[in-house]
């Protein structure tokens, strides 16, 4: 039995194909793009129908917090890219420090996001609330999309953070290293996608007011 698994493991190892993992990751990212793309279509359609309500809704969001979050996520993409570069040069410790920084940025982003959301809840604005039901129809849709899209994005930030944690553990145990870096690169790709989605969410929700 142990002989069989050893042979299977060897067999598996022989087939480690970084290129295939890259292709698989890009295909997966396409599905993510279409996932958010669908929401952007809904947004675009409702923006044309409820133009003024959307502008009014946007004016109620805190540009400062949104802007801060944009800067945080952009910087976290930088530290992620640097972490990949560090491991490519074989600097394991430096890479781990940079990944930790990325994680801290992710936590910072989620912190600000939760402050924003709880502030809205405090004002009585949540999906089923009576306060929101009294708003003009377009603003209800605006908030519907706001909660859906930023919520789904936050979920992706959390998934990305977990992926970073797992990658860090594997780097620590030496499973991911200079010569076998594709997992870190794929985590990086995912993180950049999360960043990219926010680049679109920020102006669409915060800056049209």
């Amino acid at each position, binding site marked *: 039995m142990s002989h069989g698994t050893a042979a299977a493991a060897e067999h598996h190892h022989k*087939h480690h*194909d970084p*290129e*295939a993992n890259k*292709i*698989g990751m890009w*295909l*997966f990212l*396409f*599905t*993510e793009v*279409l*996932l*958010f*793309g*669908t*929401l952007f*279509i*809904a947004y675009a*359609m*409702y923006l044309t*129908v*409820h133009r003024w*309500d959307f502008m009014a809704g946007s004016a109620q969001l805190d540009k400062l917090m949104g802007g801060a979050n944009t800067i945080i996520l952009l910087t976290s993409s930088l530290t992620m890219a640097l972490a990949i570069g560090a491991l490519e040069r074989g600097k394991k410790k430096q890479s781990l420090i940079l990944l930790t920084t990325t994680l801290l940025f992710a936590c910072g982003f989620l912190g600000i996001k939760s402050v924003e959301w709880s502030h809205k809840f405090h004002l009585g604005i949540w*999906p*089923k609330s009576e306060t*929101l*039901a009294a708003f*003009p*129809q*377009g603003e*209800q*849709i605006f*908030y*519907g*999309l706001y*909660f*859906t899209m930023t919520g*789904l994005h936050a979920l992706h930030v959390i998934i990305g953070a977990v992926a970073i944690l797992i990658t860090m553990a594997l780097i620590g145990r030496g499973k991911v290293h200079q010569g076998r870096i594709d997992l870190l690169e794929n985590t990086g790709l995912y993180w950049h996608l999360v960043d990219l989605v926010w680049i679109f969410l920020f102006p669409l929700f915060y800056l049209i007011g």
Partner: protein
Amino acid sequence: MTTAIAAAETAPNYLNAKSGIWSWLTTTDHKRIALLYLWSMLIFFVFAALLAFIFRLELFAPGVQYFGSDIYNRLITLHGISMIFLFIIPGIPAVFGNFFLPILIGAEDVSFPRINLLSYYCFVVGALLALVSVILGGVDTGWTFYVPYSLRTEQNIFVPMLAAFVLGWSSILTGLNFVTTVHRLRDRRMKWFKMPLFIWALYSTGWVQILASPVVGITLVMVMLEKFIGVAIFDPTRGGDPILYEHLFWIYSHPAVYIMILPAMGVVSEIITTFSRKTIFGYKFVAYSSMAIAGIGSLVWAHHMFTSGMADAARIIFSFLTFFVAVPSAIKVFNWLATMYKGSIKLEPPMVWALMFIFLFSIGGLTGLYNGMLSIDIHIHDTSFVVAHFHYTMFGGTIMIFYAAMLYWWPKMFGRMYNKKLATTLAGTVFIGFNLTYFPLFLAGMAGMPRRYADYLPRYEIYHRLSTIGSWILISSLFLLLIHLIWAAKRGRKAPDSPWGGATLEWTTPSPPPTLNFTGEPDLSRWAYEYPEEVER
């Protein structure tokens, strides 16, 4: 010689290399995963077919026979959900794609064997959720879950929607795996335009699965969020637009019918050439037409909504594109016919079923043009004409080819042969039963019989009565063949490695194949559609 045969017989194959239920449930062998899919799906196929059998009984006569509209609506919804999401969409790719894609390109497995297994378990979870929804009383929204009804109804809509969502994941992972495998694990000697056409079909399907499934996934999530958390998105009383839901739903669900039919078309290309002993006519056109169907098919969704409320310009554009997608489909049909022309045709069971497919699919495809035509669609929209059209393409198309693929590859998969005479005879009764079941529905639809109604006016009685009688012939023939095939997989006489003399790679390996598919280097000296005797003729 005899010792070589003895050695080949004792050499382990993928079926007996390991034993025990655990070795099956944790397998990453693409062939074993294919069999897991096969047995699971056949259960749902039988289940969904029985549902149809039951509600056709209700339609035998006008008025209420056994149950009223409420149960009827739940039955058709469940029939639709299980047939479409649990059998036809995953069907051919997950079973025959999984089994033969790596073999046909000379690979040992797919690129991501563990993700392949994960995809199977997504399928299982989705199927169990669908089952739970039945226990919870079922839903009567139809498989389309249209808002605002799905938002308002008191029934438990969450579970079937979650089921569809999880099944979407299964589909995406399979597509992702196949596309990567074709790029990375294809034998280096096999160039793109030397690939078997089944691979082209699976490759195109993989792209549609990847690009279309997320759209319906997130759309269902939006409905769930709206219904259970109260997020305003589609509800018209809160500024939402139900038509947007229809668009988003069909942006996936129309391409999904090409997910269902493209792999079947790939199988037909294999079967027709093998049994005509002749190179496929216009290889590149057949290959490109798969990609063209995948591409154009993604741009025709709104023809499901001609009566829902849309700008005239949009309706005309979508109508035009609908006609346009018929072109690559027609290319395929003409090329199959041209392949058979002057071929040395052998009417073995898979060929008989494939020929039946060409006939039934042509009717299905051509009546699709009726539906795509604006003026006629206003008349036949939501009538049983559409039901008949859909079943001619999906049942007459995909399910007939699922059977043809079983008959074609059964000897390879299990190393056992079935009773050919029985399979051919049953093709005849299925043909009669099928046309008797669905052709009257065209006529009833033209005469104004609406779809999804448990009751009807007496003047439609003759059509429904014929249809119900046809369904008895159809279902008994299909089940009989299925029972025989399952028996043959275990007890049939031993099959040779290449029972049909096909030229693709799977016929160069033993039946059933060893775990790593090939005993040596795959033999690529012969092209997938090269028949030396053809030149001599």
